[in-house]
Protein backbone atom coordinates (compact mmCIF):
# COMPACT_ATOMS: atom_id res chain seq x y z
CA UNK A 1 0.00 0.00 0.00
CA UNK A 2 2.65 2.54 -0.93
CA UNK A 3 0.10 5.11 -2.15
CA UNK A 4 -1.88 5.22 1.04
CA UNK A 5 1.35 5.25 3.02
CA UNK A 6 2.68 8.21 1.02
CA UNK A 7 -0.57 10.17 1.29
CA UNK A 8 -0.79 9.45 5.00
CA UNK A 9 2.76 10.75 5.47
CA UNK A 10 1.82 13.89 3.51
CA UNK A 11 -1.18 14.32 5.78
CA UNK A 12 1.08 13.94 8.81
CA UNK A 13 3.45 16.57 7.43
CA UNK A 14 0.56 18.92 6.67
CA UNK A 15 -0.99 18.54 10.10
CA UNK A 16 -0.71 21.61 12.29
CA UNK A 17 -1.33 21.27 16.00
CA UNK A 18 -2.52 24.04 18.28
CA UNK A 19 0.26 25.43 20.49
CA UNK A 20 0.95 23.17 23.46
CA UNK A 21 -0.38 24.72 26.67
CA UNK A 22 1.89 24.98 29.71
CA UNK A 23 0.86 21.68 31.21
CA UNK A 24 3.96 21.52 33.41
CA UNK A 25 3.10 24.73 35.27
CA UNK A 26 -0.45 23.50 35.85
CA UNK A 27 0.66 20.07 37.10
CA UNK A 28 3.35 21.46 39.42
CA UNK A 29 0.81 23.83 40.95
CA UNK A 30 -1.90 21.17 41.19
CA UNK A 31 0.11 18.43 42.95
CA UNK A 32 0.51 20.25 46.32
CA UNK A 33 -3.14 21.34 46.19
CA UNK A 34 -4.19 17.74 45.62
CA UNK A 35 -1.99 16.56 48.48
CA UNK A 36 -3.46 19.21 50.73
CA UNK A 37 -6.99 18.24 49.68
CA UNK A 38 -6.22 14.58 50.40
CA UNK A 39 -4.82 15.48 53.83
CA UNK A 40 -7.92 17.54 54.63
CA UNK A 41 -10.17 14.65 53.58
CA UNK A 42 -8.19 12.17 55.71
CA UNK A 43 -8.23 14.54 58.68
CA UNK A 44 -11.97 15.12 58.34
CA UNK A 45 -12.63 11.38 58.08
CA UNK A 46 -10.50 10.69 61.17
CA UNK A 47 -12.27 13.44 63.08
CA UNK A 48 -15.69 12.08 62.09
CA UNK A 49 -14.67 8.61 63.25
CA UNK A 50 -13.44 9.93 66.58
CA UNK A 51 -16.67 11.85 67.14
CA UNK A 52 -18.74 8.77 66.24
CA UNK A 53 -16.66 6.64 68.61
CA UNK A 54 -16.99 9.18 71.42
CA UNK A 55 -20.77 9.27 70.99
CA UNK A 56 -20.92 5.46 70.97
CA UNK A 57 -18.84 5.21 74.15
CA UNK A 58 -21.15 7.62 75.90
CA UNK A 59 -23.99 5.08 75.58
CA UNK A 60 -23.32 2.03 77.90
CA UNK A 61 -24.96 -0.73 75.76
CA UNK A 62 -23.15 0.52 72.66
CA UNK A 63 -19.89 0.71 74.62
CA UNK A 64 -20.15 -2.93 75.82
CA UNK A 65 -21.14 -4.09 72.35
CA UNK A 66 -18.08 -2.41 70.85
CA UNK A 67 -15.76 -3.73 73.56
CA UNK A 68 -17.21 -7.23 73.13
CA UNK A 69 -16.69 -7.02 69.39
CA UNK A 70 -13.12 -5.91 69.94
CA UNK A 71 -12.54 -8.81 72.33
CA UNK A 72 -12.32 -6.57 75.42
CA UNK A 73 -15.53 -7.81 77.00
CA UNK A 74 -15.90 -7.75 80.81
CA UNK A 75 -13.77 -10.33 82.66
CA UNK A 76 -14.98 -11.61 86.08
CA UNK A 77 -12.57 -13.12 88.58
CA UNK A 78 -14.13 -15.47 91.18
CA UNK A 79 -12.49 -17.27 94.10
CA UNK A 80 -13.82 -20.87 94.63
CA UNK A 81 -12.87 -23.61 97.06
CA UNK A 82 -12.95 -26.42 94.42
CA UNK A 83 -12.34 -26.08 90.74
CA UNK A 84 -15.23 -27.02 88.51
CA UNK A 85 -14.85 -30.38 86.71
CA UNK A 86 -13.16 -30.14 83.35
CA UNK A 87 -14.94 -32.24 80.73
CA UNK A 88 -12.97 -34.64 78.56
CA UNK A 89 -12.32 -32.83 75.38
CA UNK A 90 -11.13 -35.43 72.90
CA UNK A 91 -9.20 -38.65 72.77
CA UNK A 92 -5.54 -38.35 71.97
CA UNK A 93 -5.54 -41.47 69.79
CA UNK A 94 -2.31 -42.73 71.28
CA UNK A 95 -3.16 -46.37 70.66
CA UNK A 96 -4.03 -49.06 73.20
CA UNK A 97 -2.80 -49.03 76.79
CA UNK A 98 -0.10 -51.62 77.49
CA UNK A 99 2.57 -52.59 79.99
CA UNK A 100 6.24 -52.07 79.20
CA UNK A 101 6.69 -55.82 78.65
CA UNK A 102 3.72 -55.99 76.27
CA UNK A 103 5.00 -53.01 74.37
CA UNK A 104 8.46 -54.56 74.01
CA UNK A 105 6.89 -57.77 72.66
CA UNK A 106 4.57 -55.93 70.28
CA UNK A 107 7.09 -53.59 68.79
CA UNK A 108 10.19 -54.72 67.00
CA UNK A 109 12.51 -52.18 68.60
CA UNK A 110 13.98 -51.85 72.07
CA UNK A 111 12.12 -49.60 74.48
CA UNK A 112 14.35 -48.07 77.11
CA UNK A 113 13.28 -48.04 80.71
CA UNK A 114 12.43 -44.61 82.06
CA UNK A 115 14.23 -43.30 85.14
CA UNK A 116 10.85 -43.28 86.87
CA UNK A 117 7.61 -45.11 86.35
CA UNK A 118 5.39 -43.66 83.61
CA UNK A 119 1.73 -42.94 84.34
CA UNK A 120 0.66 -44.76 81.24
CA UNK A 121 2.07 -46.48 78.18
CA UNK A 122 0.31 -46.70 74.84
CA UNK A 123 1.17 -48.71 71.76
CA UNK A 124 0.12 -47.70 68.29
CA UNK A 125 1.20 -50.64 66.19
CA UNK A 126 0.21 -49.51 62.69
CA UNK A 127 2.23 -46.33 63.14
CA UNK A 128 4.95 -48.07 65.09
CA UNK A 129 4.73 -45.61 67.96
CA UNK A 130 5.05 -46.11 71.72
CA UNK A 131 3.90 -43.22 73.90
CA UNK A 132 4.78 -42.85 77.57
CA UNK A 133 2.83 -40.33 79.57
Amino acid at each position, binding site marked *: *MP*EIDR*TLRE*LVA*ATRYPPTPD*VAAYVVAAIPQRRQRRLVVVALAAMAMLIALAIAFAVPPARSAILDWLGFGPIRIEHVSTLPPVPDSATLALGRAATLAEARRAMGFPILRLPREADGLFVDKPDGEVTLV
Partner: protein
Amino acid sequence: MVYEGAVEQLPDDGVLIEQAREGDITAYGHLVARYQDTAFRIAYLITRSPTDAEDAAQAGFLKAYAALHRFHVGAPFRPWLLRIVANEARNRSRHERRQARLIPRIGGSEPRHRTERSAEEVVLTDETHRLLAGALWRLRYEERLAIFTRYFLDLSEAEAAVVLGCPAGTVKSRLSRGLEHLRADFQWEPDA
Protein backbone atom coordinates in the same frame (compact mmCIF):
# COMPACT_ATOMS: atom_id res chain seq x y z
CA MET B 1 6.98 28.96 31.55
CA VAL B 2 9.38 27.96 34.28
CA TYR B 3 10.40 24.66 32.78
CA GLU B 4 11.04 25.66 29.21
CA GLY B 5 14.56 25.88 27.89
CA ALA B 6 16.40 23.87 30.49
CA VAL B 7 14.81 20.55 29.54
CA GLU B 8 17.71 19.32 27.44
CA GLN B 9 20.35 19.78 30.15
CA LEU B 10 18.34 17.87 32.72
CA PRO B 11 19.11 14.36 34.00
CA ASP B 12 17.55 11.43 32.19
CA ASP B 13 14.05 10.14 32.90
CA GLY B 14 15.17 7.51 35.43
CA VAL B 15 16.86 10.08 37.67
CA LEU B 16 13.93 12.51 37.45
CA ILE B 17 11.47 9.72 38.21
CA GLU B 18 13.45 8.68 41.30
CA GLN B 19 13.52 12.29 42.49
CA ALA B 20 9.80 12.71 41.78
CA ARG B 21 9.04 9.53 43.71
CA GLU B 22 10.85 11.01 46.68
CA GLY B 23 8.49 13.97 46.53
CA ASP B 24 10.48 16.35 44.35
CA ILE B 25 7.68 18.10 42.45
CA THR B 26 10.13 20.20 40.46
CA ALA B 27 11.72 17.03 39.07
CA TYR B 28 8.29 15.86 37.98
CA GLY B 29 7.68 19.28 36.45
CA HIS B 30 10.75 18.76 34.30
CA LEU B 31 9.43 15.38 33.17
CA VAL B 32 6.10 16.96 32.27
CA ALA B 33 7.85 19.71 30.34
CA ARG B 34 9.84 17.09 28.47
CA TYR B 35 6.77 15.20 27.28
CA GLN B 36 3.97 17.72 27.29
CA ASP B 37 4.19 18.32 23.53
CA THR B 38 3.74 14.65 22.64
CA ALA B 39 1.14 14.16 25.36
CA PHE B 40 -0.88 17.12 24.16
CA ARG B 41 -0.63 15.98 20.55
CA ILE B 42 -1.84 12.44 21.19
CA ALA B 43 -4.70 13.88 23.24
CA TYR B 44 -5.50 16.33 20.48
CA LEU B 45 -5.47 13.62 17.81
CA ILE B 46 -7.92 11.59 19.87
CA THR B 47 -10.23 14.38 21.04
CA ARG B 48 -9.86 16.85 18.14
CA SER B 49 -10.46 19.58 20.68
CA PRO B 50 -7.66 21.73 22.11
CA THR B 51 -9.59 22.21 25.34
CA ASP B 52 -10.30 18.50 25.82
CA ALA B 53 -6.71 17.70 24.84
CA GLU B 54 -5.38 20.11 27.45
CA ASP B 55 -7.69 18.65 30.11
CA ALA B 56 -6.68 15.12 29.15
CA ALA B 57 -2.96 15.94 29.22
CA GLN B 58 -3.26 17.63 32.63
CA ALA B 59 -5.32 14.80 34.10
CA GLY B 60 -2.99 12.22 32.54
CA PHE B 61 0.12 13.79 34.05
CA LEU B 62 -1.55 14.02 37.47
CA LYS B 63 -2.65 10.38 37.28
CA ALA B 64 0.84 9.36 36.20
CA TYR B 65 2.28 11.19 39.21
CA ALA B 66 -0.11 9.38 41.53
CA ALA B 67 0.85 6.05 39.91
CA LEU B 68 4.59 6.77 39.75
CA HIS B 69 5.36 4.25 42.49
CA ARG B 70 3.92 1.53 40.22
CA PHE B 71 6.11 2.51 37.29
CA HIS B 72 8.81 -0.08 36.62
CA VAL B 73 12.14 1.73 36.85
CA GLY B 74 14.18 1.14 33.73
CA ALA B 75 11.14 0.85 31.46
CA PRO B 76 10.61 3.69 28.99
CA PHE B 77 8.58 6.46 30.60
CA ARG B 78 7.18 8.12 27.47
CA PRO B 79 4.91 5.31 26.22
CA TRP B 80 3.73 4.54 29.76
CA LEU B 81 2.74 8.16 30.16
CA LEU B 82 1.18 8.42 26.70
CA ARG B 83 -0.97 5.41 27.43
CA ILE B 84 -2.42 7.15 30.48
CA VAL B 85 -2.97 10.38 28.53
CA ALA B 86 -4.53 8.51 25.59
CA ASN B 87 -6.99 6.81 27.96
CA GLU B 88 -7.86 10.14 29.51
CA ALA B 89 -8.34 11.64 26.06
CA ARG B 90 -10.55 8.81 24.94
CA ASN B 91 -12.70 9.23 28.03
CA ARG B 92 -13.02 12.91 27.29
CA SER B 93 -13.67 12.57 23.61
CA ARG B 94 -17.23 13.74 23.20
CA HIS B 95 -17.18 13.50 19.44
CA GLU B 96 -16.07 9.90 19.02
CA ARG B 97 -18.81 8.89 16.62
CA ARG B 98 -19.20 12.12 14.79
CA GLN B 99 -18.15 12.50 11.23
CA ALA B 100 -14.63 13.62 10.65
CA ARG B 101 -13.89 17.19 11.51
CA LEU B 102 -10.18 16.71 11.54
CA ILE B 103 -10.07 19.15 8.72
CA PRO B 104 -8.72 21.74 8.85
CA ARG B 105 -7.31 20.71 12.25
CA ILE B 106 -5.56 17.66 10.89
CA GLY B 107 -4.60 18.09 7.30
CA GLY B 108 -5.99 20.76 5.08
CA SER B 109 -3.11 23.11 5.61
CA GLU B 110 -0.21 23.76 3.33
CA PRO B 111 1.39 20.64 1.90
CA ARG B 112 5.09 20.21 2.43
CA HIS B 113 6.39 21.02 -1.05
CA ARG B 114 3.79 23.50 -2.04
CA THR B 115 6.14 25.65 -4.05
CA GLU B 116 7.05 22.69 -6.21
CA ARG B 117 3.44 21.98 -7.16
CA SER B 118 0.99 23.64 -9.41
CA ALA B 119 -2.10 25.30 -7.91
CA GLU B 120 -4.23 22.48 -9.26
CA GLU B 121 -2.06 19.89 -7.58
CA VAL B 122 -2.29 21.78 -4.30
CA VAL B 123 -6.08 21.84 -4.46
CA LEU B 124 -6.13 18.13 -5.23
CA THR B 125 -3.76 17.40 -2.38
CA ASP B 126 -5.83 19.35 0.11
CA GLU B 127 -8.94 17.52 -1.04
CA THR B 128 -7.07 14.23 -0.75
CA HIS B 129 -6.04 15.10 2.79
CA ARG B 130 -9.60 16.03 3.66
CA LEU B 131 -10.91 12.72 2.39
CA LEU B 132 -8.14 10.76 4.03
CA ALA B 133 -8.68 12.52 7.35
CA GLY B 134 -12.36 11.63 7.11
CA ALA B 135 -11.57 8.00 6.36
CA LEU B 136 -9.06 7.97 9.20
CA TRP B 137 -11.72 9.08 11.63
CA ARG B 138 -14.05 6.31 10.55
CA LEU B 139 -11.55 3.63 11.57
CA ARG B 140 -11.96 1.63 14.76
CA TYR B 141 -10.31 3.37 17.71
CA GLU B 142 -7.57 0.73 18.06
CA GLU B 143 -6.61 0.97 14.40
CA ARG B 144 -6.72 4.75 14.48
CA LEU B 145 -4.53 4.83 17.59
CA ALA B 146 -2.05 2.50 15.91
CA ILE B 147 -1.83 4.95 12.98
CA PHE B 148 -1.59 7.96 15.30
CA THR B 149 1.26 6.47 17.28
CA ARG B 150 3.24 5.12 14.33
CA TYR B 151 2.64 7.82 11.72
CA PHE B 152 1.69 11.01 13.54
CA LEU B 153 3.83 10.64 16.67
CA ASP B 154 6.54 8.56 15.04
CA LEU B 155 6.77 6.17 17.99
CA SER B 156 8.64 2.90 17.64
CA GLU B 157 6.68 -0.32 17.39
CA ALA B 158 7.65 -1.20 20.97
CA GLU B 159 6.50 2.18 22.26
CA ALA B 160 3.24 1.96 20.31
CA ALA B 161 2.68 -1.46 21.88
CA VAL B 162 2.88 0.07 25.37
CA VAL B 163 0.53 2.91 24.40
CA LEU B 164 -1.97 0.50 22.88
CA GLY B 165 -1.50 -2.02 25.68
CA CYS B 166 -0.91 -4.97 23.37
CA PRO B 167 2.04 -6.97 22.00
CA ALA B 168 4.14 -5.45 19.20
CA GLY B 169 2.77 -8.04 16.77
CA THR B 170 -0.74 -6.82 17.44
CA VAL B 171 0.32 -3.24 16.74
CA LYS B 172 1.64 -4.42 13.39
CA SER B 173 -1.60 -6.20 12.53
CA ARG B 174 -3.77 -3.30 13.72
CA LEU B 175 -1.71 -0.92 11.65
CA SER B 176 -1.94 -3.15 8.63
CA ARG B 177 -5.69 -3.60 9.05
CA GLY B 178 -6.10 0.12 9.62
CA LEU B 179 -4.23 0.97 6.43
CA GLU B 180 -6.24 -1.62 4.52
CA HIS B 181 -9.53 -0.18 5.81
CA LEU B 182 -8.28 3.29 5.12
CA ARG B 183 -7.43 2.36 1.57
CA ALA B 184 -10.80 0.70 1.04
CA ASP B 185 -12.75 3.57 2.58
CA PHE B 186 -10.69 6.18 0.87
CA GLN B 187 -11.19 4.29 -2.41
CA TRP B 188 -7.65 4.90 -3.40
CA GLU B 189 -7.05 5.00 -7.10
CA PRO B 190 -3.40 4.45 -7.80
CA ASP B 191 -1.67 6.90 -10.12
CA ALA B 192 -1.84 5.28 -13.50
